[in-house]
């Protein structure tokens, strides 16, 4: 199992826990399972196309990942809002 790590406000929508052990072979499988297990989170990380939202970054063991990045047992997957600014 891999560990999905989230911060506020996602943590509040995921039962108040910041770390979640989940099964999945890729980042998108993991995050899809994460949203399914926490219905209040549905659509907050992945959009209807199954893509990671544009201003959310995912890191697998500290390295930038994407939807199809492979994950394995013990991997840490951080979901972090992007540092953005200047455009709004």
């Amino acid at each position: 199992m891999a560990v999905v790590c989230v911060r506020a406000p996602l943590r509040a929508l995921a039962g108040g826990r910041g770390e979640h052990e989940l099964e999945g072979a890729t980042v998108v499988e993991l995050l899809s399972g994460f949203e399914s297990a926490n219905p209040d989170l549905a659509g907050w990380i992945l959009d209807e196309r199954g893509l990671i939202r544009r201003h959310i970054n995912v890191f697998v063991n500290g390295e930038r990942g994407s939807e199809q990045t492979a994950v394995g047992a013990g991997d840490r997957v951080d979901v972090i809002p992007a540092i953005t600014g200047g455009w709004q």
Partner: protein
Amino acid sequence: MTELVVGTKKGLFLLEGEARGGSSDAFEITTRAFAGQPVDYALRDPRSRRLFAAVTSPFYGPKLFFTDGDPAVESDWQQAEGVSLPDGGEQALERIWVIATGEAPDTLYMGADPGVLFQSHDGGANWEVNQGLWNQPTRPEWHPGGGGLCLHSISTWPGDPDRMAVAISAAGMWLTEDGGRTWRRGNQGLTPRYLPEAPPVDPETIAFCVHHVERAPTRPERMFMQFHGGVYRSDDAGESWGEIGAGLPSDFGFPLKVDPADADSAYVIPLVADMDRVMPDGRVRVYETRDGGASWAPRGDGLPAQHAYLTVLRQAFTSTGQGQALQLYFGATSGEVFGSGDAGASWCTAATRLPPVFSVSAA
């Protein structure tokens, strides 16, 4: 006492007061919610008193929240269900543009980008995509305007839940008479001056950049439209349109309002042009017609009259009441909100220095 529900680039603001001409302290801000987040549209349903806020987080996407309690209490807000496109498709919901109350009890409609109409039959807690419009065969040919493929205007028909019109920029007018199961275009007579092709235009195929549409409740077959260059009126329920913009300083603009008591009375807020989206001559003025668009008169008593280059967006103009007691309110991207309690004859400043105003509604 009037409540103004103001959606801004940095949160939702509630104001309370009474519009008194010339006053600068007629309203006070009572609540700020969703601090720092873009609130694209907000509305209080007058039937249930439920307050809705459409919030588009740049990180987490568009969401609809509602509260039956104290809007200042974050935990009182709930996220509405079903506000998304069908999973596995090629598009994602980009932004919620408008929420409108329906004719049937507990029914609401919501327009969004990409050209999608949602409907709720339980007072706005649960929503579903209107499949008739979503599966409209010409959808692959629809083109977005500068603000996206936004469904921004929803005109119900008083007393008849089956009849409705919606407008999409830039996919034009769509009409239904069977409760949204089937839709047809209503663009006859519109002239898209922004296109290089010379008229005549094909009302079935050309991209029509409708900016806003309102129906006259006392004469539902009459509708007014602010187009991307052109103000129009329809007397056949949106099937065809005729230009009524002569007499305005500019026929470019976004919002439009109709006096619910008088099908001949409407209000627009002209901007110079699509390439210069500010008030003409640096003067803030609302233009009124009392004869169905045959003539227009400026209404600006109490509004800034010099070096005021304001922009008013399409959802930032609202009304409540009717006739001589018609109240009009509009907000600007520069953070002011202005109001009139006498059908535009005199104006007050309801707020200054708000974040850019996206929407204004009154209850």
